[in-house]
């Protein structure tokens, strides 16, 4: 007998004569305490994210590239990984070219194996879009894809994320339902609620454990 058959057999034996409990999920318990007026959503998200060391900058569709340049220059960063195949990547590229920025824009356009060493040691910052945000917990939702692969938001020490204000949901449950996640998920979905951190030594909080040391969120208020 295989391990599988044995395990399932034992479990079935133990359940013999019983009926499965009904599904008693009560969505009010995960939604009612976590509802906000539309105008409060950004503030809620912002205060929660700031509490865990995240920089949150409200901006607009026409001025965010300028802000990115400023943030990078302030930190003396020399390169930024972004997706030229995405609309925001193109907008950033256009701005950087027009204003002759010194920061080099890098693209994740080959399999990770082809440039792992460089990605892990030389890329200083990255910029990605997000699928949306969650006000209840101060969370960004990322669905990595071929344009903005999984490691893009993890390996570079500084991660800048674009968040459209209109895509901030009250809570995770609402967002899952609104977008029908249960119908099918991509290979990887990430909920990100701050820069990487640890409290493993004496419970002292230290940022920049293995992922980004800094998370910067640009909230596009007009989008």
């Amino acid at each position, binding site marked *: 007998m295989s*391990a599988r058959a044995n395990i399932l057999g034992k*479990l079935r034996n133990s359940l013999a004569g019983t009926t499965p409990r009904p599904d008693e999920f*009560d969505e009010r318990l995960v939604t009612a305490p976590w509802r906000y007026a539309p105008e409060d959503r950004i503030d809620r998200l912002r205060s929660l994210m700031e509490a865990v060391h995240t920089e949150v900058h409200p901006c607009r569709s026409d001025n965010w590239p300028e802000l990115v340049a400023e943030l990078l220059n302030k930190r003396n960063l020399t390169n930024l990984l972004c997706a030229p195949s995405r609309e925001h990547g193109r907008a950033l590229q256009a701005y950087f070219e027009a204003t002759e920025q010194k920061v080099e824009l890098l693209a*994740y356009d080959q*399999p990770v194996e082809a440039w792992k060493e460089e990605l892990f040691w030389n890329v200083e910052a990255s910029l990605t879009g997000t699928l949306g945000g969650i006000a209840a917990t101060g969370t960004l939702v990322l669905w990595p894809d071929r344009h903005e692969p999984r490691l893009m938001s993890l390996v570079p020490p500084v991660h800048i994320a674009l968040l459209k204000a209109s895509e901030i949901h009250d809570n*995770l449950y609402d967002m899952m339902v609104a977008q029908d996640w249960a119908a099918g998920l991509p290979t990887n979905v990430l909920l990100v609620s701050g820069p990487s*951190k640890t409290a493993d030594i004496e419970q002292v909080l230290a940022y920049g454990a293995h*992922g980004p040391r800094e998370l910067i969120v640009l909230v596009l208020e007009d989008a």
Partner: protein
Amino acid sequence: MSQRIPVTELTPDFRGRAEEALADGQLRNNFRVAMDSLMTKRANAFPDADEREGLRELGNRIKAGALSRLPDLLEQLEQKLTENGVKVHWAETVEEANSLVHGIIEARKGSQVVKGKSMVSEEMEMNDYLAERGVECLESDMGEYIVQLDNEKPSHIIMPAIHKNARQVSKLFHDKLGEPETEDVNQLIQIGRRTLRRKFMEADVGVSGVNFAIAETGTLLLVENEGNGRMSTTAPPVHIAVTGIEKVVPNLRDVVPLVSLLTRSALGQPITTYVNLISGPRKPDELDGPEEVHLVLLDNGRTGAFADAQMRQTLNCIRCGACMNHCPVYTRVGGHTYGEVYPGPIGKIITPHMAGLDKVPDHPSASSLCGACGEVCPVKIPIPELLQRLRQENVKNPEQPQQVKGGGAKYSRTERWIWRGWQMLNTRPALYRSFLWAATRFRVLAPKKAGSWTENHSAPVPARRSLHDLAARHLDQNGGRPS
């Protein structure tokens, strides 16, 4: 000196280790400070008691519901994961699980493994198993890394290195890595970051645990703060997840309350920095992520706990660690005293099914039954009730069939006779009266020593007159009226 427990053989000497731990002021302080702070954080994370209780009730219902159809859910999970391109393996024992994992690594000719935090892999002692076969298996969670570097085991399921302070970590990094000594926690973490980053990049295989496996979508959900879990599951070409069979939940929406309960109970955080939902390996058009994803489903005694409707509740556990944070015994003796993978209250109720109650005979009684664990458990496992049940199982006649693995280890003929005698005395009024008469009249003959009781207490001496006598005399004097 902090306690060191040998990596593979553990003695059942709970008492000895407890005494040692209680005498270690540094260790006690490290735990006390940490547990106090974790308790405060949890309390602050649930400011509204009604909300908290509603959510705990829901958490309990989801887990109990999942267990009530566990075999079907496991099959559904397997089918969905397989459709998504994840390979599912089943293991009854840790031996089988280890050999499955090793087989996968061997097929890729792998020699380096990085591991995200996984208590199931601790159960398997996977690091040792792989090391014996020439595969380096490196822990990548900061706490786990520290513990591994010092050849120790985790002392807490969420905070593995909580028994150490910064000075001790500094010394360790100095001795083992040749780093300059520093008590600055930030600098210590940066040392860990640098060392492990190279390992993430070079590793052939990443191993992780699973917090929740979602049957509906075929998804493995992992929570973490550091990013090492994401690294381990994303950077190497192969990802192997190991988990117990009880981790499956029916629907994606179920993880909403469960994750909230988990992170708030464990660390007092509304959510962890990362919640990582993995539903498959890299697709042909994707540029990163593992080429292969495997899930190893481990039994290791869980079907045994499952067979008993009361003990089955143990499998509700979402491994938040709140029960240990709130346990007055754990806080004083620390995690290593338990000498097992899972310390504290949850360890006491889960270990018997894995190792056998006879391996941990002192655990069920190392509790004041204060009830704190059951009160804070986010999925409402009645831990004190299960501890009492295990106390009973502990003293069952070993010649009878046992309901819990290794039951009957504390059975004692003498104790049995004492209770028989007690029962006789209390069910036969004539006998009882003559006993009382003798005990009060010959009270000076009462034994001065009564086993371990008189080690810490003075010996009990019967009163001059029994309550019965006194009451009877009182009634006589009052002409039969009570006052």
